[in-house]
């Protein structure tokens, strides 16, 4: 366990060394939040609420989704693709730790860094710029943070899956790009899932994506009430476990393939 904590620490320190890159990141996220703020204001027009969300909740939703994205988002899939293509992965595999575990911990180190140096200051900045409302209840904050941990793992697992496909595809840059776009749309980052037509919502109920952005953001904005909150968390927890199955299967197949290539 110690070695994994060390990996988190190293990644955290590495990010700290290049921290200037992140100030412009806050600006970019701010610009995006701004664009959606104006867009949603125009969409709401005179309407008091759409699908149970008031305009203030909607703006808060947008702001918190983007800032949460700073935490869960990482390029581990791309890093894995490079390591696999360059053959570095072979060396990693003989080291005394699990390769996927190491990648997860690196992602977590990166995420924690961004959480403290990006999400929190970013959220404070946008709080003063846009009409956002933060919940006063510590329970909401607690549940939100718990939910955010799950979003990290679900997103991470999808990243691992995409990364492993490099073993099978010659070039998966396109897949990685496509995955990013699909996640932005289906995770609820751009649009709350409840805004989609019912048939689309039903389909998405069977997919893990809304566990990445929609559920934590709805908890944060109090868009979920009572049982919805716990159902959401259960949904996330279930997917965090379920996704381990395809990962271990495809990882097992990938390792076998690697041995064949080597021999």
């Amino acid at each position, binding site marked *: 366990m110690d070695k994994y904590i060390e990996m988190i620490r190293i990644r955290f320190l590495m990010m700290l060394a290049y921290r200037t890159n992140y100030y*412009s990141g806050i*600006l970019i996220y701010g610009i995006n939040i*701004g664009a959606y703020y104006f867009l949603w204001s125009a969409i709401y027009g005179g309407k008091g609420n759409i699908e149970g969300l008031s305009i203030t909740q909607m703006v808060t939703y947008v702001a918190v989704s983007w800032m949460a994205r700073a935490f869960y988002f990482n390029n581990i899939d791309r890093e894995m693709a490079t390591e696999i293509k360059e053959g570095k992965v072979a060396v990693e595999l003989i080291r005394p730790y699990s390769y996927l575990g190491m990648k997860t911990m690196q992602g977590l180190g990166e995420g924690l860094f961004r959480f403290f140096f990006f999400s929190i200051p970013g959220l404070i900045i946008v709080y003063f710029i846009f009409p956002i409302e933060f919940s006063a209840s510590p329970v909401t904050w607690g549940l939100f943070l718990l939910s955010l941990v799950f979003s990290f793992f679900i997103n991470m697992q999808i990243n691992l899956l995409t990364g492993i496909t490099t073993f099978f595809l010659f070039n998966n840059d396109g897949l990685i790009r496509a995955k990013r776009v699909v996640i932005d749309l289906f995770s609820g980052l*751009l649009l709350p899932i409840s*805004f989609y037509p019912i048939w689309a919502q039903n389909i998405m109920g069977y997919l893990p994506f809304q566990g990445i952005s929609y559920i934590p953001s709805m908890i944060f904005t109090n868009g979920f009430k009572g049982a919805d909150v716990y159902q959401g968390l259960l949904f996330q927890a279930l997917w965090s476990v379920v996704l381990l199955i395809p990962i271990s299967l495809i990882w097992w197949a990938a390792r076998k393939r690697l041995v064949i290539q080597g021999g």
Partner: protein
Amino acid sequence: MKTRLQYRSDLVVEILSDLLFQAVNLVFILVVFGHTQFLHGWSRDEIIFIYGFFLVPFAIFSTFFNIWDFNERYIVKGEMDRILTRPIHSLFQVILERIELESLFGAVTGLAVMIYAGSLLDLPFHWYDPLIFLLFVIGGALVYGGIFISLATIGFWSDARTSIMPTMYNIGNYGRYPVDIYNNVIRYILTWILPFAFVGVYPAAYFLKREEWYWYSFLTPVVGLAFFILSIVLWNTGVKRYRGAGN
């Protein structure tokens, strides 16, 4: 181009992921209009039309002005020295080296989206419209080109890594929607300082017969040309200052 064609599957994948990206933006518009009739007086089909129009100049820009990584690729690596020894204008050569014809596919998508939305809107069509369209598209592409070339010239003065390019790409997205949804300050910036509105709404307004915007529509080629000339002036000044990587 020939080397690109060798990786044909990459090309297909790239086009597909661009298509997916455009589809996501359309889905956003469609879903949003499931909840509202008008966006500040603009109907769903009008917004889609504006988005379709935006895609055409943007595709042309991405094809010919692929200079977002100019600083890393040419200045930091010293490639600029090689460019400057050649007898054609340096900017022209950089552009030629970095052409990505596959991005032109976005223009096809854009046209398809425009034709689809236009037919729903029953837009009148005149024989001179294609000519005006061409003029506006070139204007819009020049606006984008001008802004990004100007930004690339920063590399001549400072070789520090900046993230101004991705920031600007994100600001460019503001031009996809009608500018009247923004507040006055942002509208002013999008019109006169970073004129991204001339890539989407303003020229599209002409085809949507929004007469209150005509004045801006016909300003599109002028603004495009002005920003492009400004960027060339900046480029030439920058090249004179350029001392090369290393010593």
